[in-house]
């Protein structure tokens, strides 16, 4: 067998065993990241933070290479990454982390979580709408859709579809949400100390404020794994609340303001 034959054989196995291949690839990625964390940063940077950033970098090149929207998961041999990191297994693993929750801590931070959820929906929306206005959007539908995108990349298109935004504005709205999620993943470990993100209570506030489940999931994994369930507990309500108020209260408010 020549080298192309061997390559095709390997590719065939990767396609046929997609999820198993994803386990092996991700395991390898984490192995390299942990080694880099220990050797290159002397343990100052969490291995999982490096792995997540490495994942994002690979997603960028995967996206350039395939022209698709799902990073490396659009490469047939790595399609299993799509299943492994998709919403189904992501939510399954997030629920599993709840097994480690300290109930007393979570209950004590309940009110703080609600306050964080409210602020986490209103603040990004205001920033998003102001940005839209600054860039010359004057109709209530476009302004609301872009503002909703700043809440999360799901709230954006759900709101846009409900109030009839056009597709370029929708794309802009989704891109805003995705950019926010990516920045939360990368930025959280960098600012964690500064914002006091080192205990269950602040993790619940963080989850409600940042919202985007993928951003929060990645950001906390890279910062301190034991905080994951607390952040996830509040973050999971964020998108639903955003989808609730985006096309209703927020849209009506914007329409009343811009006419």
């Amino acid at each position, binding site marked *: 067998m020549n080298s192309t034959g061997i390559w095709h054989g390997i590719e065939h196995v990767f396609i046929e065993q997609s999820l198993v291949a994803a386990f092996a690839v991700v395991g390898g990625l*984490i192995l390299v990241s942990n080694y880099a964390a220990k050797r290159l940063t002397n343990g100052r940077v969490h291995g999982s933070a490096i792995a997540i950033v490495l994942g994002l970098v690979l997603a960028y090149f995967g996206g350039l290479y395939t022209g698709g929207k799902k*990073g490396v998961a659009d490469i047939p041999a790595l399609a299993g990454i799509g299943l492994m*990191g998709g919403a189904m297994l992501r939510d399954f693993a*997030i629920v599993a982390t709840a*097994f480690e929750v300290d109930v007393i801590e979570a209950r004590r931070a309940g009110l703080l979580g609600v306050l964080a959820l409210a602020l986490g929906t209103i603040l990004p929306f205001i920033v998003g709408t102001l940005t839209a206005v600054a860039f010359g959007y004057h109709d209530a539908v476009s302004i609301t859709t872009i503002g909703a995108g700043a809440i999360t990349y799901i709230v954006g298109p759900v709101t846009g579809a409900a109030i009839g935004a056009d597709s370029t504005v929708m794309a802009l709205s989704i891109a805003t949400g995705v950019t926010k999620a990516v920045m939360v993943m990368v930025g959280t470990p960098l600012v964690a100390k500064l914002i006091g993100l080192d205990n269950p209570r602040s993790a619940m506030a963080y989850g409600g*404020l940042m919202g985007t489940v993928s951003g929060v999931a990645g950001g906390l994994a890279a910062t301190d794994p034991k905080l994951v369930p607390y952040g996830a507990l509040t973050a999971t309500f964020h998108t639903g609340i955003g989808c609730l108020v985006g096309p209703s209260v927020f849209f009506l408010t914007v329409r009343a303001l811009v006419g």
Partner: protein
Amino acid sequence: MIVFGVALLAACTLIGVYLGDLLGIALGVKANVGGVGIAMILLIAARIWLDRRGRLSKGVKFGVEFWAGMYIPIVVAMAAQQNVVAALTGGPIVIIAAVGSLVLCFGAVALLSRFGGRGHTGAEAAHAGAVIEGDADKIAPRREV
């Protein structure tokens, strides 16, 4: 049995997501409202219930904690399938809106985390950290509620 742990986790997830869908419909929203959060609360309740009856076996714990330990790898896989190209080529409006809301929200976290003091970080939290980090060597026996 390990499978009971996995099945318990699956049942909690399914019920939670279903209730989240119902809540979405009730509120007239085209999205799941807090399904995962409801599932988490169900799993916490199930843990306490089983523990009080002395039925929280090693197998059940292992079945759930295995998936908690797979959390970070799954998040890495999630990162590897983000639409990073779109994020980086979105132009100034996207960057400004995203950075602006991020800075404001980080500031709000800093403000809110000052309320009510710090939580405790005892042996239980260390156990949770080891499980979710997926480091089996560091997993210490937990103090049950």
